[in-house]
């Protein structure tokens, strides 16, 4: 199985994602240049972290109009799995693949730190190898990660089990102190209604090796690759 990792001008977690897929998972990966129109037969698209187009105007707002995004959106509409991490999450929201928006951190500070996440849903193709309420340790590194949506959207996300990860303390409680950016309801990651697009601010691709301080991201990558190998429909 092959992951296509999109490279925008300003992407900087593309190589981390490549290493996660190729070196840790033993799967194939290919970089997809933002000006290309060809997904090169990728089975999974990764929108990596970074600062595409310098985050000008709003994070993700310009990247959304990259030529490759037309193909990525079509791939998503066909049910293809998309893992959108950090800046990728911002781009996916701007592109309308996911509801809501990521705004400036409430603290007005860029936060680079390990955080605890609670797994809220294992019914997605990205999280089947976790267990419910499992607490993960995964790093974040962003200045615009405050998840915001209108009240109806939040109710729908919660009601339909589309909130996948929540910021929690070490004991799994979604406290105010455990919320690093002021996200509504401590939301750290969501899936779309069809379940094939996951957006998350934390970096699972940086939690793949003991030397990096955590291996809690491995189950996410192996969940989605196993879903591809077993032909799970989106």
């Amino acid at each position: 199985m092959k992951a296509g990792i999109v490279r925008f001008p300003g992407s900087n977690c593309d190589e981390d994602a490549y290493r996660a897929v190729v070196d840790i998972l033993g799967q194939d990966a290919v970089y997809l240049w933002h000006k290309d129109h060809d997904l090169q037969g990728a089975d999974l698209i990764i929108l990596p972290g970074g600062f595409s187009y310098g985050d000008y105007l709003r994070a993700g707002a310009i990247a959304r109009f990259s030529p490759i995004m037309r193909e990525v959106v079509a791939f998503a509409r066909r049910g293809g799995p998309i893992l959108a991490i950090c800046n990728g999450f911002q781009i996916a929201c701007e592109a309308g693949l996911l509801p809501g928006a990521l705004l400036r951190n409430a603290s007005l500070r860029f936060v680079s730190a390990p955080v605890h996440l609670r797994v809220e849903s294992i019914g997605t193709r990205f999280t089947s190898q976790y267990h419910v309420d499992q607490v993960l340790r995964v790093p974040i590194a962003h200045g615009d990660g405050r998840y915001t949506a209108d009240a109806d959207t939040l109710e729908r996300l919660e009601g339909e089990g589309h909130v996948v990860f929540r910021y929690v303390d070490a004991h799994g409680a979604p406290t105010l102190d455990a919320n690093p950016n002021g996200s509504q309801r401590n939301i750290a990651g969501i899936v779309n209604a069809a379940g094939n697009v996951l957006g998350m601010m934390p970096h699972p691709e940086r939690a793949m090796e003991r030397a990096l301080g955590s291996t809690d991201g491995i189950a996410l990558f192996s969940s989605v690759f196993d879903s591809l190998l077993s032909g799970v429909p989106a």
Partner: protein
Amino acid sequence: MTRFRVAIHIVPRRGILDPQGKAVTDALHSLGFSHVGDVRVGRFLVVDVEAASADAARSAAKDMCDKLLANPVTEDYEIAAVEQT
């Protein structure tokens, strides 16, 4: 076609936490501007555009806001001025 200069204000929607606005409000209070209630920090764009009329320029600017310049989830915009240049 005539050249127009369109001024656009984009601000965080009321009810959505604006931490920049909050920081500015707090700073103004600490300077003694105690009568300041609320500040929201947004963006001001000046767009030069060719159009058949001022109305057409305004309409084009609204289209730009809807498609790119403002985030429909979190921001409101206002076409503040349209001037022939």
